[in-house]
């Protein structure tokens, strides 16, 4: 019954055996209206570990999404599922941040940030990288910030209202603007 994924899993450090995630059965035809990172190939010459994995999901909604569970499984009603997500994100507060070319992960307390600007400042200080604006147009920073949301899609930071972002952001990545296509970003 398992349908094939794209074979491009997020290769991350985690506990547990590979394939531990409730069978990687894909979601078909799910209506996703968000701007999802598409065909993003991120390479970094300084990248040694597989910490910064490659993620790609297709814009074409009829094709499988990477590494997802079967729709509606386990059979927890959607109301409860949402509450579960809210609890999980509230409880954590801290999200991991990785940056291309930097071999270590950092953690920041998203709960204590109150705006996108604030977040940008925090990240700038953390990684010693200036001009890390989250806006898409205008700023010509070399890097952009993307985040993984509850549905495991990679999204551009800054698109949704701050509160919504805070609740759905599971982790952050700072990537080179030139490496990230598909977000409607203007090329330098």
């Amino acid at each position, binding site marked *: *019954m398992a349908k094939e994924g794209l074979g491009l899993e997020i290769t991350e450090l*985690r*506990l*547990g055996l590979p394939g*531990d*995630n*409730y*069978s990687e*059965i894909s979601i*078909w*035809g799910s*209506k996703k209206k968000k701007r999802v990172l598409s065909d993003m190939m991120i390479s970094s010459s300084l990248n040694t570990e597989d910490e910064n994995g490659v993620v790609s999901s297709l814009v074409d909604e*009829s094709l499988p999404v990477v590494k997802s*569970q*079967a*729709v*509606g*499984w*386990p*059979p*927890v*009603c*959607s*109301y*409860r*599922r949402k*509450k*579960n*997500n809210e*609890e*999980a994100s*509230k*409880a954590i507060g801290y999200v991991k941040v990785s940056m291309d070319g930097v071999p270590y992960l950092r953690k920041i307390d998203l709960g204590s940030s109150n705006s996108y600007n604030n977040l940008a400042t925090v990240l700038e200080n953390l990684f010693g990288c200036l001009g890390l604006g989250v806006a898409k147009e205008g700023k010509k920073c070399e890097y952009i910030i993307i985040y993984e949301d509850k549905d495991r899609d990679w999204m551009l930071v800054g698109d949704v209202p701050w509160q919504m972002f805070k609740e759905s952001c599971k982790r952050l990545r700072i990537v080179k603007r030139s490496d990230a296509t598909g977000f409607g970003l203007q090329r330098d």
Partner: protein
Amino acid sequence: MNYFPDEVIEHVFDFVVSHKDRNSISLVCKSWHKIERFSRKEVFIGNCYAINPERLIGRFPCLKSLTLKGKPHFADFNLVPHEWGGFVLPWIEALARSRVGLEELRLKRMVVTDESLELLSRSFANFKSLVLVSCEGFTTDGLASIATNCRHLRELDLQENEIDDHRGQWLNCFPDSCTTLISLNFACLKGETNVAALERLVARSPNLKSLKLNRAVPLDALARLMSCAPQLVDLGVGSYENEPDPESFAKLMTAIEKCISLRSLSGFLEVAPLCLPAFYPICQNLISLNLSYAAEIQGNHLIKLIQLCKRLQRLWILDSIGDKGLVVVADTCKELQELRVFPSDVHGEEDNIAAVTEVGLVAISAGCPKLHSILYFCKQMTNAALIAVAKNCPNFIRFRLCILEPHKPDHITSQSLDEGFGAIVQACKGLRRLSVSGLLTDQVFLYIGMYAEQLEMLSIAFAGDTDKGMLYVLNGCKKMRKLEIRDSPFGNAALLADVGRYETMRSLWMSSCEVTLGGCKRLAQNSPRLNVEIINENENNRMEQNEEDEGEKVDKLYLYRTVVGTRKDAPPYVRIL
């Protein structure tokens, strides 16, 4: 009986309460049918598309209470697309046009709009009770209409609905003259609550027995609310977040101690576990405890609380309680009848060492002799455990086991779980509802067909090998009413073997199975009293009529009996054959 005047017979019928029984007596003879019709006050409609409002009103003109269910059960798990159906407005419109004196409306999995709530609130002068479970489509504006216009409102019970919270003043809309509230549940509202308005409302509702708050009601407000409603029987605690200062905590404790009638506790939507001890004094009185939304209370705090709840009959909890915690439950809660253990980690991300296993389940079955209903999410199971459970607890009415990973075998023997579930159905002669999971072959369905004589509802996922599996069930379980199947290899042969069977059932759901369009068409052909719906959201699969591939597999099939033919409100992606 026919020598008695109608009023006498009617009086006798008043004592017949259950829907099944009333349906039966209406079949005895014309005279009884007529008397029953006009004396029926409560009607239950399990599928809103099985009948239409006009016929309902025509038959039961004196109806006072209506219960309606809309979407199929699997809609809870996002398997039914939005806009599928289940709209309540036509019902309310029809009832409003007629002269039905509606007093109570209970809806489950239906689409409710502010417009329908407004119409409801204006149309029935004696309206008393609104219960909405797993509904969607409305906002707090609709609630404001109800509050404003329903002068005799006794019950407003909102359970697990998707409500757009406009952060308005709906609580303020209850007029000062409204003092009749018995039950108020708004736990599912996400936004800010006008706490002052709430306190005033509670203060002027001396009959209030059930109050369930949402997360926006903080601790100090809780203390005040409980102080002015010591008669509460059922309490849903909202936000419980901050650790209070000693003075607030003392006030809370005093308030709680006075609530000697409290029997049911739920909520704790945001929790500071250090506040739980405030509830210790009333734990001995509790018969129902729902901590399944309290994700932040850790196992040991839960255990301390539960140890005091010796009279508990119903417990809903998260698997963070662990097997250890379930052993405590088994030792403490000897009156336990219903247990639900939900997964705290739905996405399976963390290595949840504390989660429950077969050990907890066996302990519960051994320790709780009155247990008859269980819903259990776990990561692993064994046949030996299920056999032990069956032996310990032959009284199960509802047995729902969900092993989180599909196709997972007995983790010790690596065999399928056929024997385990077989033992359950063989021992539990009164079993009415069953959900199976884990690695299962056709054999388990042979057992179910053979032994589960009282089974009315069966949920199957990722199970079985061939059509025989489904056939065993359809042939064996004569009382089956609802059958729902997903991701299992059952196809046309099983579907078409006994088409007449489906008219004895409420509904059949099959998704990601092997049935084809051709099979569904054949099924629909000679079944005017069945609606056969094909739900296909995927744009690419929609073809022109003449290009249709009969061999194409059907994504989702939902069929149900009906006396009113094809419904007119289906969205474009639903095809009714």
